[in-house]
């Protein structure tokens, strides 16, 4: 459904700060895929998401969505079929508005008119959806979102993202800012929504265990390139240990501390 062809991204091209953040990436994401991405800091993972989401255009190369070229389509247009969650829980919600207002805004993508859609019926629907989170949020529809904890906010963001049933969801370390308990909860929810609604998913994580455990395909990125691409049975057999070995084998490098290589 999404195809990247020879995509390059060079920041500050032609200056001393030139930074070749994405190098010749070719990637095809199929419908129903759940892809995890790992890679060290600055490997280009978020940049890859920004290119797919349309935050900026690639320096060279093309991006196709369902076979139509969307390389230069602005982010807000692509957002109609792409959902996205960031590491920072505050980026997904309007903090000084109520839960119900936030959910209303997210329940349907695209330009909104002069209709008043927030009524008894939609509130009931929101309550029913919030029950899925099991965080007692269904009784806090008129609370401002800023009163919620980071884990609650990120769970709400996840729920609001799937309300509009996007075709593709991009998760950028969406549990990294949470404590382990909340992170596990949000990951569980993610898995639940993904399988329930059959969402095509790409998830960046610094947790190699999660990268192996979740999804049907895994990409390893380094210095702007996808250096390892594994799926199916082969992926299931991986362990954190042979992931690190794999990295050395590919990059022919030796680091003092293997863990700093792929995780933080």
């Amino acid at each position, binding site marked *: 459904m999404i195809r990247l062809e020879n995509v390059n991204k060079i920041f500050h091209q032609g200056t001393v700060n030139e930074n070749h953040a994405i190098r010749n990436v070719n990637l095809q994401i199929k419908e129903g895929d759940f892809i995890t991405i790992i890679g060290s800091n600055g490997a280009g993972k978020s940049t890859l998401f920004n290119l797919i989401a349309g935050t900026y255009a690639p320096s060279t190369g093309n991006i196709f969505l369902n076979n139509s070229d969307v390389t230069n389509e*602005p*982010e*807000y*247009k692509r*957002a*109609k079929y792409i*959902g*996205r969650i*960031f590491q920072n829980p*505050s*980026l*997904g*919600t*309007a*903090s*000084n*508005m*109520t839960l119900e*207002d*936030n959910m*209303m*805004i*997210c329940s349907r*993508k*695209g*330009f*909104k*008119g*002069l*209709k*008043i*859609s*927030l009524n008894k019926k939609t509130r009931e629907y929101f309550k029913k959806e919030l029950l899925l989170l099991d965080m007692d949020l269904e009784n806090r529809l008129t609370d*401002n979102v800023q009163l919620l904890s980071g884990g609650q906010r990120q769970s709400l963001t996840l729920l609001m993202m799937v309300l*509009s049933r996007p075709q593709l969801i991009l998760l950028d370390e969406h549990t990294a800012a949470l404590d382990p308990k909340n992170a596990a909860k949000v990951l569980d929810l993610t898995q639940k929504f993904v399988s329930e609604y059959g969402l095509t998913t790409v998830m960046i994580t610094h947790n190699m265990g999660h990268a192996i455990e979740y999804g049907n395909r895994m990409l390893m990125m380094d210095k702007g390139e996808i250096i390892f691409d594994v799926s199916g049975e082969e992926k299931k057999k991986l362990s954190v240990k042979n992931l690190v070995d794999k990295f050395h084998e590919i990059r022919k490098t030796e680091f003092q501390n293997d863990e700093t290589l792929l995780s933080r």
Partner: protein
Amino acid sequence: MIEGILVEGLIYSIMVLGVFITFRILDFPDLTVDGSFPLGAVIGAQVIISGMPVSLGLLAAFTGGGIAGGITAVIHNKLKVPNLLAGILTMTMLYSVNIRILGNRANVPLLHNKTVITGIHSISEGLMKTEYATLIFFIIFVYIIKKLLDLFFHTDLGLTLGAMGNNEQMIISQGVNPEILKIIGLALSNGLVALSGALAAQYLGFADVSMGIGIIVSGLASVMIGEFIFKSNKIAVLTLSAVIGSIIFKGIMYFARIYGYAVRMTPNDLKLITGLMIIVLLILSKTKIFKRKKGLE
């Protein structure tokens, strides 16, 4: 006297509502206001002078202000200039435009024309004192505008506007073009400001191209006074606080004008007072937030 303060406060509260929309809801500090307020005044005046109905003048003023706000938004969107600069550009250009609309004059009297005020007088004649009639009219007028705004900010579009001021990324992620929202928000805001300008000119009995100088600061002061009194996340309370803030501001200004001579103040000092008032309010609100945070810990 008290009716005078109330009426002026109500007329200017329409402008304050416009300032509230840009500064507080859209988080787009918009200085177009200093130009769109007199724009409304001169458009309204010209329509009246040419003999057309007063209501048409008000509608034209609202539309003119809306276009001015839209231009600021487009400058900001397309040229990627900071919002303050975009507003200053439009405001400066409007100064010339306003003089042109008045037929190369800087001001025009409206004492012998049919205005909103004369309209009220002719209806209320013999029923009650004209001051009271004017007051009642403006209470109803502002109430309707406030209600319409409350309603607007409950619509899907209104909610989205509110969210954009808080988190633009969220709006983009929802498939909405923030550029369009900014045009809509600024047009609405400046439309209200111009409407307020048209009414102010008719109430004062003249339109003057310099009547907008410092309007943005007095609007902001009014918004802040209102916020100082009410704290809420409900739009209906926020708009009410803007209206009340405007009336209190006019009251303070009135007393500064009347009793200021005791401390050798002249009307020229009023803008300085307004600025100082904002500074004091900023300090007070900072300490207030400080206190509230402490209370939560």
